[in-house]
């Protein structure tokens, strides 16, 4: 029997669109009959469960995709709750409206929840203190909570949280609990190992792909081989004869084979004879880029931002730099290929699998199957990477449709080929930059971008530092699907903008660090138009990375590149040190300074930045997605090349600007500056500008 809870107090948290949290309390006197006094546990609020045996369970409300929030979010609660972190057990919270925004995206989990989680911890702490004070009949002000115990200072009496839990759960919920002074933080800012580290290193079931249930069947799906093709007919005679195959289901535009094992499902799928009709244009990447070029030559009809008169600046310039940058489409390639478990029977649906948007999965399943949301549960396991792929809920919806059709619990497994060829790709983009240069320096900046779908936008830095600035974006319509990819928008724009600024510095014979500081000083003291960034914070990371790398004193044999970018509320500046060995670049070291305001878990924070740097180098150097007659030419890692350990930097040095402000994003901001810093280092090494990704294609 599950331990019963005598009384629950709920802390209602709802997200507001700016990323802040609204906090309110409601008292729900649901007097659940106490079952037995032994091993009871008590919800002090929705994030905190304390057992009379002193177990402390904290719920992590957002999906864990490798960004570390299953550790960092409970750390924030534990800090204010004043418990011994080593004794805390963490569970991923179920999908429930009371938890607010349960999404992994936009580097938003920590920055969106910091204050609310502190308040949740402090609320429970005050209730525990109140319970102790009442027990001892002393004023609460004479009691302090620390390390999972409440101490009555004058008498030295102590009670553990476990001993106090049942009484604490009946205490009034304080309306404005006192938060710790940040100088008293004991956990926040320290190095904390991922809560699942031991399970990971010992191979325990943790991921969606590890789901195993009684009577579960395994499914694979044949999807259209090209964008623009649709299902015409299927002959499943041979597939049904494959040993282990139980069902073949025709879906709207695909065919599912459901079997007793993954292997049987795969063999069954291979035995399908399917005819696909081309019902739309079958597109090619080469045509996309040709169209981009045409659109850039023609120019955009309107500007996203237009300060001063760029045209006039170009005309009166002594030199105009005019340069084009090109970036291919990318797949996400998270290591855990997509999968999802679904059990849809009798008007109810249980879903469990990798998603960054469990609420969206539930909503789409509800709409597609006509099952009310209250009858649908969505469980979210730890996930083998996200990178934005699972902000789309196609994998969850598809599993639900298949389970509903066969009336059995089903795990749908995607192969790597399925995953790579049915993605929502980082859109290919092209940028044209023009700069007006005079004896006085840079006098005009014209940024023009085009991409699949909406097209790139952005009026970020150097806007605000120049009298004449124009930014424009155009979108090319396409039936190739696009989606969010780590640091969307920023990952492409930063490459083009920061590479171009380096070209400007070269043309002006200015030091790229000193020149950026000069532009930022102008933006601070005499900004032009709206400033989308904080010049002081930009300066803080540039100063710090210059110090870390001893900028200006490049070691012998090393070629250096510098870049910086602002995204998701945080600032990052990087120096890439590389050596050319046998004509090949070897990244020896990357220095990175970050200003994300307060750091929660130092180890996790460094991990995010180290990972983002490797991610950025990887995608600048190696992979690309190519559409050929609507099909994705790359099918697996032999053709879609990822960086391997021998191409990884030998060292990465990450430092954070010390700050007492509330945290800003960190899962993504480390990525955008890497590609331009690498391109700028490659220029310093080879004298050649690397304006087209992937770089490896024309290094040879």
């Amino acid at each position: 029997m599950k331990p019963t809870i005598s009384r629950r107090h709920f802390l209602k948290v709802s997200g507001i669109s700016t990323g802040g949290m609204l906090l309110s309390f409601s008292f729900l006197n649901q007097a659940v009959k106490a079952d037995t006094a032994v091993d009871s546990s008590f919800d002090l609020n929705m994030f905190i469960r304390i057992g009379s045996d002193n177990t402390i369970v904290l719920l992590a409300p957002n999906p864990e995709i490798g960004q570390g929030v299953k550790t960092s979010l409970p750390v924030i609660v534990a800090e204010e709750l004043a418990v011994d972190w080593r004794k805390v057990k963490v569970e991923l919270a179920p999908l429930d409206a009371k938890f607010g925004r349960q999404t992994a995206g936009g580097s938003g989990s920590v920055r969106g929840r910091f204050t609310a989680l502190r308040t949740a911890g402090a609320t429970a702490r005050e209730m525990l203190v109140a319970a102790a004070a009442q027990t001892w009949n002393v004023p609460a002000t004479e009691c302090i909570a620390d390390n999972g115990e409440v101490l009555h200072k004058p008498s030295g009496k102590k009670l553990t949280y476990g001993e106090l839990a049942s009484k604490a759960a009946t205490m009034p919920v304080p309306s404005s609990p006192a938060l710790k002074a940040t100088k008293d933080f004991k956990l926040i800012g320290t190095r904390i190992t991922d809560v699942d580290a031991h399970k990971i290193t010992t191979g325990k079931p943790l991921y969606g792909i590890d789901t195993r249930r009684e009577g579960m069947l395994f499914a694979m799906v044949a999807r259209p081989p090209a964008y623009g093709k649709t299902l015409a007919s299927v002959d499943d005679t041979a597939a049904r004869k494959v040993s282990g195959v139980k069902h073949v289901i025709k879906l709207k535009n695909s065919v599912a084979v459901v079997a007793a094992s993954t292997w049987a499902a795969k063999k069954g799928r291979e035995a399908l004879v399917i005819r696909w009709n081309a019902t739309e244009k079958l597109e090619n990447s080469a045509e996309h880029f040709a169209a981009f070029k045409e659109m850039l030559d023609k120019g955009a009809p309107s500007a996203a931002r237009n300060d001063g008169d760029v045209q006039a600046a170009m005309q009166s310039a002594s030199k105009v730099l005019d340069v084009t940058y090109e970036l291919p489409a990318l797949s996400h390639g998270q290591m855990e290929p997509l999968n999802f478990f679904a059990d849809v029977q009798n008007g109810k649906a249980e879903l469990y699998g990798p998603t960054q948007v469990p609420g969206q999965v539930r909503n789409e399943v509800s709409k597609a199957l006509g099952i009310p949301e209250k009858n649908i549960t969505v469980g979210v396991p730890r996930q083998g990477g996200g990178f934005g792929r699972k902000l789309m809920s196609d994998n969850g919806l598809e599993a639900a449709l298949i389970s509903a059709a066969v009336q059995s619990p089903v795990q749908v497994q995607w192969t790597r080929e399925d995953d790579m060829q049915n993605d929502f790709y980082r859109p290919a983009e092209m940028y044209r930059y023009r700069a007006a240069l005079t004896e006085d320096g840079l006098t005009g900046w014209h940024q023009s971008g085009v991409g699949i779908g909406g097209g790139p936008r952005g009026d970020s830095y150097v806007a605000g530092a120049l009298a004449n600035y124009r930014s424009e974006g155009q979108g090319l319509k396409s039936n190739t699907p696009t989606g969010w990819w780590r640091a969307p928008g920023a990952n492409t724009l930063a490459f083009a903008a920061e590479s171009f600024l380096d070209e400007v510095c070269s043309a002006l014979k200015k030091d790229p660090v000193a020149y950026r500081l000069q532009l930022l000083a102008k933006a601070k003291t005499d900004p032009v138009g709206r400033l989308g960034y904080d010049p002081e914070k930009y300066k803080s990371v540039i100063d710090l990375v210059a110090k870390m790398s001893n900028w200006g004193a490049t070691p012998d044999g090393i070629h250096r590149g510098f870049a910086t970018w602002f995204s998701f509320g945080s600032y990052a500046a990087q120096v890439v040190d590389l050596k050319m060995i046998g004509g090949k670049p070897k990244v020896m070291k990357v220095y990175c300074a970050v200003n994300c305001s307060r750091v929660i878990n130092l180890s996790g924070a460094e991990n995010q930045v180290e990972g983002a740097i490797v991610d950025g180098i990887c995608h600048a150097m190696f992979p690309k997605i190519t559409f050929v007659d609507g099909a994705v030419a790359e099918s697996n890692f032999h053709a879609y090349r990822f960086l391997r350990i021998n191409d990884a930097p030998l060292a990465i040095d990450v430092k954070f600007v010390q700050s007492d402000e509330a945290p800003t994003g960190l899962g993504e901001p480390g990525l955008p500056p890497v590609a331009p810093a690498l391109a700028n280092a490659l220029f310093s090494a080879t004298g050649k500008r690397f304006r087209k990704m992937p770089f490896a294609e024309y290094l040879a």
Partner: protein
Amino acid sequence: MPKYTLSVNGNLLSAEADADTLLLWVLRDHLNLVGTKFGCGMAQCGACTVHVDGQAARSCVLPVSGVGTRKIVTIEGLSSTGDHPLQQAWEELDVAQCGYCQSGQIMSAAVLLKENPHPSDEDIDNAMGGNICRCGTFVRIRKAIHLAAKKNKAK
């Protein structure tokens, strides 16, 4: 369907599977040993790495019919108590981000350390080149292998 008896982590385990079923799926679907991960299905990423008679092997391309009496060790059997020096080092240095590739990384590293107790960075890069980590934990992986080598020496 033929029945195969395999030596896995010191136990003899039986599975009924088609002869061409790949060892990875027999481990995961038939024997419920899900620590060995599916990543690519063509020996390109190393997520499925196991030991076959002490050598690192990609279980995603090895048909069950070809295993015979060779001894299989998976991540679940690397150490009965989960405290192999590599597992300890991985935890101490908080290597994992998403964690999905790490069982394969550790299995590859275990063979490396057995053959070369004190590898250089270059030795590590050469031995670990078959294991992709999409999160980019390579710098910590190098450090963790050096740390495990030190732990081995201290024993």
